[in-house]
């Protein structure tokens, strides 16, 4: 029996990646596993198994700090196609994925300053949808909670709305307009952490960005970790566990996995390499970069060995003198 109506004041016209809470639950029930299984595998296998063409992909933190860069390069190396990227708080992930021909849609929180990507957008070669870092994060939170949307008071009044999938209603409790942000349940997420065990329990030190929400909202989750530690370490300090194992599908041991970004407590970012990236303007420059640093090596380990080198890595480790709070 209907007992009234709520007015829809406005709604965005853009396509959204939306999975109904029941469909997500069904996936979790049937395709995720609550068994304590050893999920440790090579990056090659993890990406092969858990990233598919056409997937909606999310990652955590940024290119500069604790970003999942080795997994990102592996995705490009395996020439995944038609990815839709959740570019929350990103700097160069989106540019590399577009440059590698992997991504053709981006939900924009922040796509960074690499001229190449902005140029591609100007030419209309990549389909952008407008959101913001906050709204994408709230969408992931709703996806993680298993609810269809979350209300929020951002985006209101802006031109973002019409290029998003936001619905504006008159809130039935306060009688003022509020945005309903649709839940975001990525097909796959890639997350770099300081410590994980072989089952996928993981913890991070430092700001946690959307580590938990991203993992919890995603159908498939690949974790890369600076260190693989014993499960007992989590049990000794359970307040620090950010991801419980049952959210995770694959664990990759990836020392320097955030390079050229840094990982707190381990190594600082490589500023020189970063400048190399942010100066990429043309297609040729992009392809040369990818050839040099992605296609021409077979793995992250080979990349570190042949393209970075131990003396550079040592230098970055040497710079990471602040350990307080990170262990």
């Amino acid at each position: 029996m209907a007992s009234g109506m709520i007015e829809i004041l406005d709604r965005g016209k853009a396509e959204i990646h939306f999975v109904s809470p029941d469909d997500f639950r069904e996936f979790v029930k049937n395709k995720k596993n609550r068994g304590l299984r050893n999920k440790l595998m090579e990056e090659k296998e993890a990406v092969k198994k858990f990233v598919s063409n056409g997937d909606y992909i999310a990652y955590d933190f940024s290119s500069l700090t604790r970003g999942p860069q080795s997994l990102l390069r592996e995705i490009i190396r395996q020439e995944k196609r038609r990815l839709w990227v959740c570019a929350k708080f990103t700097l160069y992930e989106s540019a590399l994925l577009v440059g590698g021909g992997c991504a053709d849609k981006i939900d924009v929180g922040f796509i960074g300053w690499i001229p190449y990507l902005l140029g591609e957008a100007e030419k209309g070669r990549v389909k952008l949808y407008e959101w913001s870092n906050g709204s994408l994060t709230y969408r992931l939170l709703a996806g993680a909670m298993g609810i269809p949307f979350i209300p929020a008071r951002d985006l209101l009044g802006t031109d973002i709305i019409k290029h998003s999938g936001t619905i504006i209603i008159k809130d039935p409790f306060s009688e003022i307009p509020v945005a309903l942000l649709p839940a975001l349940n990525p097909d796959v997420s890639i997350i770099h952490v300081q410590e994980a065990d072989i089952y996928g329990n993981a913890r991070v030190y430092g700001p946690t960005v959307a580590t938990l929400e991203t993992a919890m909202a995603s159908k498939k989750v690949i974790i890369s970790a600076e260190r693989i530690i014993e499960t007992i370490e989590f049990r000794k300090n359970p307040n620090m566990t950010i991801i419980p194992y049952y959210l995770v599908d694959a664990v990759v041991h990836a020392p320097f996995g955030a390079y050229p970004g840094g990982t707190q407590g381990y190594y600082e970012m490589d500023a020189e390499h970063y400048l190399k990236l942010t100066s990429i303007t043309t297609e040729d420059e992009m392809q040369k970069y990818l050839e040099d640093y992605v296609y021409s090596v077979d793995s992250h380990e080979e990349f570190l060995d042949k393209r970075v080198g131990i003396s550079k890595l040592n230098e970055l480790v040497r710079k990471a003198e602040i350990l307080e709070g990170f262990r």
Partner: protein
Amino acid sequence: MSVVEFTDTEFMICQAARLLEDNKTIFIGWGIPQVVAILAERLYTPNIVQVFEFGAIGPQCRTPFLRGTMGGPQNTYRSLQWCSMSLAFSYAQAGYIDYGMLGAAQIDKYGNINSTMIGENYEQPKKRFPGSGGGNEVASYCWKTIIVMSHESRRFVERCDFITSPGHMINGKDREEFGLPRNAGPWRVITSKGMFDFDEKTKQMRLIGVLRGLSIEEVVSEMSFKPLIANDVIELEPPNREELKVLREEIDPYGLIITKGKKIKMKV
């Protein structure tokens, strides 16, 4: 009498730092806002609490300010809390964050900000920018938002090509009619030539200060819309020696941020 030399950017940073209040929280974005907050903390507002969208609350940032490591150990050093992005934004949404500080590619007379694109066709913009980032949330949620931007005519427009972050009036409607939080929004605009607030009644941008030595006309002529002019437009003091010393020796010795923009020489 002596001569002081400074850049546009140094001027803006010092103006912003002098505006902040102590014992307040402030949402900080990448770049200039970081330098402003550290300068203010060193000289004026020792207990200001910086909030970063990635989840750092109240760090005691280590200097020098290093480009790009906003989420890294130096900048998040000895925070009061490391938390999540959804929590950082929720602190702001629930009203706990007093100030916000943003840049802007375009701004209109009601303080609407464009950081998305220039042009008329969204699908193929003349110029594409990185997008909102957390800017939309800062302008929507924080009580008082300070916008820092270089003073160029093309940046001050009648209507933003794309409204990324909300000002006070949008398409003739008050921001509150859209459901945006009450009594919040843009508070000051600091440019390389002057400072603006927003008229309470008309909600329009109003010139309240000009860099010493500039005339009101010189400032207003480089804007594509005519701002209101306050009854008593004050003269904005250039950066002082102490500010410049802290900026150049302690915070940004490599000049990653502060060297940008035009150089200005002035007798003081």
